């Protein structure tokens, strides 16, 4: 059975839009909203674009190279293009929104690349990850800038590493190695940037920074010097090799020290000189001169080698400056010939002149002008004895002709000169040395050695060693003999006798006078007849005396060197002078008699007495051999006795002395005898 399905209920077509629209539409709407939200937020968060112009942009890639600030990524290079004239590369960097306000005029940018220097390797991370741009700016937001010029190298001074900013200047031979550390006692306390040549080429200068807190080490008394390289010195203490560190040896470095305290702290922007080495840096502290030096030219006629830049300029021996330039000068118009002259520029420190008032170059020039009028001149002088170097000396000339200091000369005032005083010591010294070397020193020395050897042998000889003592003892004995009373009495007695004779002669003249002259003459004639006999007798006496075996005796005595000391004490020996004096006393008595007796009548008696006296002298002299014979006996006895005394040197000497005394006494006797023989009258007349 088929059943018709019930009619289909037709629902009204109109239904609300809620029923007609699917819920799924919510999904795209939400997606759209999210997309819009993300797009907006990313747009809103997007920082500004800045343009950095680099000369080259090696390694900088769009969308890859980052901008770093303190090693944190703060931006990305979005585009790398050229400037309009293709002169440089522009990197367009999208920077983070929150750092953008700080990127103001203080900002600097540079590209960090891997770098291998003597100081080490830097930027190693960029080897793997590519270069990045480093930015640096201060912490204060300022007016934003959008266009910058990038630096070639990393700047020395950057925010975040505060310090004292200085300029380091190197004059002369000092070399400034750019981008080197600054050490203080081995600690790196700062850095020196790349060195630049000054505009006039006179010096190199580099900016430097001393990091906090080391900046307070710098005062205006601080001196910098180049610590790179090494110094080698050879002195009395041996060879010395000195360098700061291997790093600074290779890569260079600058160090400093404050040699004197009390300097004012340095300010940013101060410029310091860098010296070649520590000693010069130290020396510069003590001849510091803040004022401009006075430059003076001196023209020397002669052209002498040895004057170098840096040679001292001295006034009265005090260094007042130095030679800053030496040049040849040919000026036909000025000098009238084409000779080469030496033009020397002197740099004089006004402070060194001890000027009253302010030490300025002008004052110094005024002072020198005045002194030149009084005779101050410049001259070349030897700086050292051996070095051959020269210096410039200011000397006062007494009779200098009137010359003015030429203040109008260009470029510097010209000082008058006088003759040089160059002592060519080296040449003289050379000559002297040559002569010395030509001396036959070896022969001389050989002779001297031989001589000294002989001397040594001589001195070492026992006999010679004894000699001084013997001499001394001999002198002592002489003194003893001379000092003995009897010997001293001899002259006195003689004198007394002669005085009496003289008195007798006077009495003769006074008493008898002219009346008895004839008789006297007769008597004298008579008496004179006896005189030859007397003389003959005296001659005989003398002959006898001469015949005395004195020499034999002396030889014998000399043979008895080993005699004992007692010998001198023998009664006879002591009696010898006594005998002599006794003889003289008899002579005296005779003369007294003569005086007391009657004149000429007594002359004969006197003569006979004199003869007797002479006889007695002869007798007493004749007694000598006997005496000596006795002594001989005694001494020979003594010598046998003394054999047992073992040749004591003391005994020997004493014996020798005694014998010498004896011999002297004998000599005296013989000389007396000789005297009498020569002139018998002297005995009578005292002449």
């Amino acid at each position: 059975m088929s059943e018709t399905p019930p009619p289909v209920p037709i629902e009204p077509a109109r239904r609300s839009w809620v029923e007609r629209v699917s819920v799924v539409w919510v999904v795209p709407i939400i997606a759209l909203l999210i997309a819009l939200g993300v797009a907006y937020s990313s747009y809103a968060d997007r920082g500004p674009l800045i343009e950095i112009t680099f000369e080259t942009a090696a390694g900088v890639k769009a969308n890859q190279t980052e901008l770093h600030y303190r090693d944190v990524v703060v931006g990305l290079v979005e585009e790398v293009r050229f400037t309009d004239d293709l002169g440089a590369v522009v990197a367009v960097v999208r920077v983070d929104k929150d750092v953008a306000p700080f990127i103001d005029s203080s900002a600097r940018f540079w590209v960090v690349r891997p770098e291998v220097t003597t100081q080490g390797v830097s930027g190693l991370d960029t080897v793997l990850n590519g270069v990045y741009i480093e930015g640096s700016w201060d912490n204060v937001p300022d007016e934003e800038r959008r266009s910058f010029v990038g630096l070639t190298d990393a700047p020395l001074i950057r925010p975040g590493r505060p310090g004292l900013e200085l300029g380091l200047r190197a004059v002369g031979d000092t070399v400034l190695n750019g981008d080197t550390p600054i050490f203080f006692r081995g600690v790196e306390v700062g850095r020196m940037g790349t060195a630049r040549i000054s505009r006039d080429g006179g010096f190199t200068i580099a900016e430097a920074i001393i990091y906090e807190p080391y900046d307070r080490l710098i005062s205006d008394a601080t001196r910098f010097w180049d610590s790179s390289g090494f110094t080698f010195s050879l002195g009395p203490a041996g060879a010395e090799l000195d360098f700061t560190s291997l790093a600074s040896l290779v890569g260079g470095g600058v160090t400093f020290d404050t040699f004197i305290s009390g300097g004012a702290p340095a300010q940013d922007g101060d410029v310091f000189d860098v010296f070649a080495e520590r000693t010069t840096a130290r020396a510069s502290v003590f001849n510091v001169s803040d004022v401009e030096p006075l430059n003076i030219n001196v023209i020397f006629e002669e052209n002498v080698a040895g004057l170098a830049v840096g040679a001292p300029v001295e006034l009265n021996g005090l260094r007042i400056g130095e030679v800053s330039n030496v040049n040849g000068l040919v000026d036909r118009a000025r000098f009238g010939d084409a000779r080469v002259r030496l033009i020397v520029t002197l740099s004089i420190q006004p402070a060194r002149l001890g000027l009253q008032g302010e030490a300025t170059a002008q004052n110094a020039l005024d002072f020198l002008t005045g002194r030149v009028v009084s005779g101050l001149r410049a001259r070349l002088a030897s700086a050292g004895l051996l070095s051959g170097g020269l210096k410039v000396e200011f000397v006062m000339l007494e009779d200098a002709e009137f010359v003015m200091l030429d203040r109008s000369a260009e470029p510097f005032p010209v000082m008058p000169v006088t003759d040089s005083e160059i002592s060519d010591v080296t040449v003289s010294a050379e000559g002297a040395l040559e002569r010395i070397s030509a001396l036959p020193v070896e022969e001389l020395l050989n002779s001297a050695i031989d001589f000294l050897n002989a001397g040594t042998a001589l001195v070492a000889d026992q006999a010679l060693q004894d000699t001084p003592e013997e001499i001394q003892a001999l002198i002592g004995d002489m003194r003893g003999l001379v000092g003995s009373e009897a010997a001293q009495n001899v002259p006195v007695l003689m004198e007394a006798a002669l005085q009496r004779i003289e008195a007798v002669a006077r009495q003769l003249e006074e008493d008898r006078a002219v009346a008895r002259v004839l008789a006297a003459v007769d008597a004298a004639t008579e008496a004179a007849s006896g005189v030859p006999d007397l003389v003959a007798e005296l001659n005989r006496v003398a002959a006898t005396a001469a015949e005395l075996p004195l020499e034999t005796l002396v030889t014998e005595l000399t043979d008895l060197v080993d005699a004992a000391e007692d010998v001198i004490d023998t009664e006879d020996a002591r009696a010898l002078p006594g005998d002599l004096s006794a003889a003289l006393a008899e002579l005296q008595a005779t003369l007294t008699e003569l005086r007391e007796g009657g004149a000429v009548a007594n002359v004969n008696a006197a003569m006979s007495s004199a003869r007797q006296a002479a006889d007695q002298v002869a007798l007493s002299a004749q007694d000598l051999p006997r005496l000596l014979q006795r002594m001989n006996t005694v001494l020979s006895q003594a010598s046998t006795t003394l054999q047992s005394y073992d040749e004591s040197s003391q005994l020997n000497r004493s014996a020798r002395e005694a014998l010498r005394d004896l011999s002297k006494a004998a000599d005296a006797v013989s000389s007396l005898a000789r005297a009498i023989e020569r002139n018998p009258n002297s005995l009578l007349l005292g002449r």
Partner: protein
Amino acid sequence: MGVVGCPRCTKVWPLGTTRCTRCGAQIVSRDRKALQRVWAWWIVGLMAYIPANLYPMLQTRTLVSVQQDTIIGGVITLVNHGSFGIALVIFLASVMIPVGKFLAIAFLALAAQRGTTSPSRHRMGLYEIVEYIGRWSMIDVFVVAILSSLVQLNTLAAVNPGPAALFFGLSVIFTMLSAQSFDTRLIWDAERS
């Protein structure tokens, strides 16, 4: 005819039945909102597909470089390295298939709304292809997932998925939802009328 088939278990019910008592699925004779859902998912899928191509899919970090590749960029890199086979596979899976799906779904939906001259049988086949092949679009995501988990050599080399992977996955999911939302009966409705 006054009957309606259950879309899940295909049991025929009298017209007006709202719920299949056998499988419990909702029974609607002609879902008027089906095309709206298709378009909605389609649009979301397309929106996800844009960043999936703009953002990098792979982030390859080696010792010396960091490389970020989008889908097209990766294909070009592979071609440059001479790996044409792999490049072709990735190009098919990540570019051709998704784009084809978008076009196919859009064509089916437009045909259902406006009518077309193409045979219904062809369109049905097209739909089935889309449905079948849709899951293979995930091949690119799989590649990224496998590479990311395998190549993690710390500093030496590392592969990480880029943001595009997420968007690409979403895009595939949304296009599949879009395809499933399509009511194939609409293809034949046009033929009957």
